[in-house]
């Protein structure tokens, strides 16, 4: 039994003959930002899907907060305190921003079905409470002016933030961010870096992040793990990992160029 906040032990995921992830182990400490990088098809999102229990690992165990979550039902993950965002944004597009955030509160709603059908006073009180929490998140992420708009009418950059907000609404202990900067312009990516810092500092949420934008990775990560073809290449600080010869070879297929590492370390 490990006392780590989150740990993956020798996890593997095979799809038929394809070994998407093979014997990967890592620990995440409480309060840190842990980034996973790697070229396309390295198995980053597969690891996320195993943690959020969309996939069941072929082998290995996942532990979270002193509990084995390897075989838990997917819908119970949120209640344990793990929330996530998706690479291609999976918001509820025909609902308003506020409704999306309220759905994020689902893991905290305990009212029995019949009392919901009758809308008993206890349900009403719980709804007001959910709304207060959602409004806190709206304020935290500066989303006030979009509150009652349909997601379908919002620009991509805002949707990314809304998805972050929906995850925060569940008051997670661990937040999984799948490419938070994909599709964002430079300015929006910088904004995202600030949100991530704030979430870590103000809300003390632990974050595991899959990301391609090395500037963002370097700016917010405490530790970085590099994957290629389902295996770990390197683990350590952002500069260490990016300078690691295997990592460079995986990305560009050649020897490291010194200036590249320097500029990243300076960022």
């Amino acid at each position, binding site marked *: 039994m490990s006392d780590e906040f989150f740990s993956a032990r020798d996890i593997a995921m095979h799809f038929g003959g394809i070994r998407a992830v093979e014997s990967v182990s890592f620990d995440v400490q409480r309060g840190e930002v842990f980034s996973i990088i790697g070229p396309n098809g390295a198995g980053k999102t597969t690891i996320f899907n195993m943690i959020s229990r*969309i996939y069941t690992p072929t082998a290995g165990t996942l532990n979270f907060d002193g509990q084995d979550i390897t075989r838990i039902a997917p*819908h119970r993950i*949120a209640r344990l305190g793990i*929330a996530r965002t998706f690479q291609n944004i999976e918001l*509820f597009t025909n609902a308003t921003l506020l409704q999306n955030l309220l*759905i994020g509160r*689902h893991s905290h709603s305990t009212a029995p079905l019949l009392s*919901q059908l009758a809308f008993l006073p206890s349900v009403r009180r719980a709804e*007001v409470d959910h*709304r207060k929490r959602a409004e806190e998140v709206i304020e935290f992420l500066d989303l006030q002016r979009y509150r009652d708009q349909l997601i379908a009418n919002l620009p991509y950059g805002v949707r990314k933030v809304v998805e972050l907000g929906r995850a925060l609404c569940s008051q997670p202990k661990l937040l999984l961010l799948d490419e938070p900067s994909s599709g964002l312009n430079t300015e929006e990516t910088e904004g995202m870096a600030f949100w991530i810092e704030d979430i870590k500092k103000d809300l003390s949420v632990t974050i595991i992040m899959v990301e391609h934008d090395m500037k963002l990775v370097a700016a917010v990560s405490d530790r970085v793990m590099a994957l290629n073809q389902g295996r770990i290449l390197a683990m350590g600080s952002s500069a260490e990992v990016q300078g690691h010869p295997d990592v460079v070879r995986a990305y560009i297929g050649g020897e490291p160029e010194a200036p590249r590492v320097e500029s990243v370390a300076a960022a």
Partner: protein
Amino acid sequence: MSQLKTSYEQDLSLAGTRSNVVWYGLLLASLLLVPLAFSEFYVGEMSFVLIYSIAGVGLMLLTGYTGLVSLGHAAFLGIGAYANAILLSRGVPFVLSLPLAGLISAAAGVAIGIPTLRMSGLYLAIATLAFGSIVVLVGEKWHGLTGGFDGLPVPTPSILGIAVEEPTGIYYLALAVLVFVLFVAMNILRTPLGRALVAIRDSEISAQSMGINLAFYKTVSFAISAGLTGLAGALFGHYVRHLAPDSFGILLSIQLVTIVFIGGLGSLHGAIFGAVFVALLPQAIALVRDDLPFGIGQLPGLEPSLFGLILVLVIMFEPTGIHGRWLKLKRYFLAFPLHQRTSFRRQKSYAKSERLR
């Protein structure tokens, strides 16, 4: 005039603004006065609209809000109608037989919901279509229970010893049930349950990662939808007074689907608009039938073909249905003369339930 909101409670109130309270109050009052002002024929037609509205709200929860298509919903209408009639003829009082009809229908909804949990789109449509046909077949063959092709007479219901007569009694009964059903539906939509259904419709994967148990909520959606449709069925039985299994077949199912699509998916208003349209269309056809040129009015199958044509046209040109059109009109007049042409452009975005995955 819109009021400035000052508390979260205001967003939870069913009526919303004060002007809404006035308008819906007026609507309810005029509905209560219908039997005093109109002849029995029109009261009967209005009861029919109300019954279709109840069924429409039931199917709207499943198709419009959970994104699950059902081409067998007439079966739930039939199960409700038969359950109610059989219970009544065995001496169960109406105040019990009506809710029991809803519950039995809901149980049937669970029975079809569980095996079809992993289906969506076309597959679910075919599975529910098959379910609908099976129910009709069972109704025809199980002579001892349903009377088969001979049909089943529906006893006149009585509440507290007072007989509820056609058409006025049934009209008020249907109105009361519709108000109850709308109350339940609106409660669903403002609670975690309703949000879970919408979440499942828009993205199953993220619904799951928000902690929503897909299997449970899909089954609940089927159960509630079937239950409400079963209530409509019980009243439908009293409206037609004589049940025959084949009247709950595919044609009626398609009418129910037409209600939610023409009305506008994902809106309770839409369910009512659609029900008014679908329930009154045959009457409208009957009115003009003799005046149509080239003997079109005498062609067999005119009604189903018109339903089909209208369904196709609505899906192509106004996917948000009558309700969506109504919202656009309202916005047009609110913004007039500053409206923007783009706001009223033809919509090409579809809710997920219309898409085959």
